């Protein structure tokens, strides 16, 4: 089932997962997950809660450790080598459900901190890049405020800017709109759409079916730690093959 939409993408995959297995104690969270993600592809992952979709994308930048199988990101295999892990994390940006902005730093400092300490950019250049990204996500006027002074939607847009500031090749989104009020969801989704159009490789865990339909190149449906169904959004929403997928779609649509 891997690479169903590979025809559009001529390059080598940028993320390769082969037979990835993970357990939390006795609980088997990920079961033989194999998937390739190609540069510039937008992959949306959906599924019921507890199906392992968040755990899966957290394995890709080693926030969780997988116990079996291999994950290769941009030619580097994720193992126990701290240098490899650091190299992979430099290439991957991540946006969390709870934003996780640093509350003791201003918006600008949140975005420039890692640029300076990880990318070793000069202070001025880091600040400039931060301002540029704040303009791109539409809130340059909030630069001097602290995260606690912003609305949820604004915070999430800052979090996206913070991840983009590292110039990642891949962006992971872990339910980026689940903690937001309905009227703020749109502003975040709009930023993500623009990002997808600009050619960023994205893995998005979300419950926003509209976003999946509109933006995704490929949809993966997770259930009980397995990829049950994978395909283009049209194929997935109009003509689901698997019983579980049909049941899930009937409940949410």
């Amino acid at each position, binding site marked *: 089932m891997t690479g169903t939409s590979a025809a559009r993408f001529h390059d080598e995959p940028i993320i390769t997962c082969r037979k990835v297995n993970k357990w939390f104690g006795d609980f088997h969270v990920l079961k033989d997950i194999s998937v390739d993600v190609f540069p510039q592809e937008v992959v949306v992952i959906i599924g019921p809660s507890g199906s392992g979709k968040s755990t899966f994308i957290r394995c890709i*930048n*080693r*926030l969780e450790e997988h116990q079996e199988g291999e994950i290769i990101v941009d030619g580097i295999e994720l193992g*126990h*080598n*701290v*240098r490899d892990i*650091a190299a992979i*994390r*430099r290439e*991957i*940006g*991540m946006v*969390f459900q*709870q934003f*996780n*902005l*640093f*509350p*003791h730093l201003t918006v600008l400092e949140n975005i420039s*901190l*890692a640029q*300076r*300490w*990880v990318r*070793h*950019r*000069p*202070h*001025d*250049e*880091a600040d400039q890049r931060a301002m540029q990204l704040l303009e791109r996500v539409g809130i340059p006027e909030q630069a001097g405020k*602290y995260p*606690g*002074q*912003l609305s949820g939607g604004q915070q999430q847009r800052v979090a996206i800017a*913070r*991840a983009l500031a*590292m110039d990642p090749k891949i962006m992971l989104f872990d339910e980026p709109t689940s903690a937001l009020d309905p009227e703020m969801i749109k502003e975040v989704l709009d930023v993500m759409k623009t990002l997808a159009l600009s050619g960023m490789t994205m893995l998005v865990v979300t419950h926003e079916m509209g976003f999946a339909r509109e933006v995704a190149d490929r949809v993966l449906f997770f259930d009980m730690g397995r990829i049950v169904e994978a395909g283009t959004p049209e194929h997935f929403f109009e003509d689901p093959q698997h019983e579980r997928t049909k049941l899930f779609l009937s409940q949410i649509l």
Partner: protein
Amino acid sequence: MRGPGPSRKTPSSGAYATVWHEITSFVFDLRFIQVLGQIAVVIVLVTLVSRVVTDMLLALNQQGLTPNFDFFLNRSGFDVAEAPSWYSANSSYWEAFQVGLVNTLRVVIAGLIATTVLGVLVGIFLLSSNWLVRTISKVYVEILRNTPLLVQLFVWYFIVILSLPVLNDAVTLPQEGVLLLPIRLALYALVLILALRQFRQGDPRRLPVLIGLLAAVAAIEIGLSGAQLLPARGAIDSPAFLVYLAASLLLLGAAWFLPAVIWQSRHGEALPNGNGEPPLLGVGYSRVRDPLAAFLAGQLAGGLIAYFGLAPVTALRVEVYPLVYLSNRGIFLPEIMLTARFNEWAAFAGLGLLAAGVIWAYYGRVMETTGRAVPRLRYAALAVLACAALGWLLVAMEPGPEIITVEQDGAAVVMSLDEARAQGLVSLQDELLVSRSPLIVARPERKGLRFAVGIEITPEFMSLFLGLTIYTSTFIAEIVRAGILAVPHGQIEAARALGLSQSQTLRMVILPQALRVIIPPLGNQYLNLAKNSSLAIAIGFADFYQVATTVMNQSGQSVTGISVVMLAYLAISLAIAGGTNWVNRRFQLVTR
């Protein structure tokens, strides 16, 4: 008379009703009732306090003990166990208070610093992923915070410190004598440092290498010392030699294969040995330049050479004098003394500090503008060290007196400085004048039952310091643990996802947020330590409270005495609270 109901209902009753309405609305006004209540409380309090104070003053007057400050300048008439040389029984009560206050401040300041360091370390250890470290710290905290401080002070004083040997048999560190340092040890240290460096670079292949290395060093040391116990160097058929040979070969083999075997069991594939050689005997093997293999091969060769006496066992001869004396009369430490040339050297050192400041600021700006990481702390430290070393050299090169007048057998004799030194005739005072170096470290020097030179730490101070530090550190450890746990895990994940290293995450993300939670309760523990220092009286340390008690007993001025004690502890506490509040304000979060 009508009740104080709302008068609006009876508008017909005229002017009387209006007045009545105004009175009731004033009396039943919440603001008026609050003010009235406060006035009542103040009146009751003032009455009670003034009654107590007048009674007390009357009683004291009848005994001729009216509180006053006049007695402050009277002769104290008592000695303080731990006092500077200017204090004697002829000094005034006021001076006795000063001595006590200085003693309290000494133990409090030393205790605050030590308990912070210890507490933070134990707090971090409580969260260690290492089971042993975590459990030991847990036991430390649970035992020590659940026993009374007074009991702990008694244990430190009577059981630990006072059971140290008497002065004549004092434990000396290091032991006096001659130390022969085998050059082999330096080699071990070098190899260990190299191995540690490689281990830090994060290649898990290095972990078994490190473990193997440590085992090998231990095994060979034990083997060598065993071999040396045997009568003669020797014969190729002696059992010791065969054991040594077998052990060395075994270790060499282990060094070659062990990392590969462990690697294979963990990763299920042969250890990649970099040069594409096929695995040997089914498993991979370490490269020859793997440090452990090379090291052990060297050991084998070196051991054989030493065993057959082909080369002398080279060792550095170091004469050792005791620097620290531990006894039940106290702990005696060497004293650093300034000689006549100190000021000249201090000028050079000051120049170094200035240069360091300039370098720090300059590279700070370079880092800001170019983003290039500059190890400016290292550069600045280097500048200070270089200036200090150069200054030392220049100052020491200045010519000094060649001859000196010393006392020999009761007569003044002029002899050359070197000769006088060799005969041990130059007194410390003379040495301070003629020495070429700006600082000298004076070893503790016995003179009868006391030490004439050296820093003395009394058993009482030591016990109180240890007791306060260790007791308070357990509470601080728990506070630090709670503070770190209070930082949401998402913060750490966000920092990791951005690629910040562990130490960067700790420094820039976790600690600034943890401190916000840590500082207020930490300030409370600081206050506790300061106030608990008055338990000094139990073990006879001459702190402020103990001195004040003596003063009160002798002068009968208990009211003034207690007031002075309260004021002094209040001042110390306010200073500590002010400090923590100031720090606390700097770590508050800005929210909407």
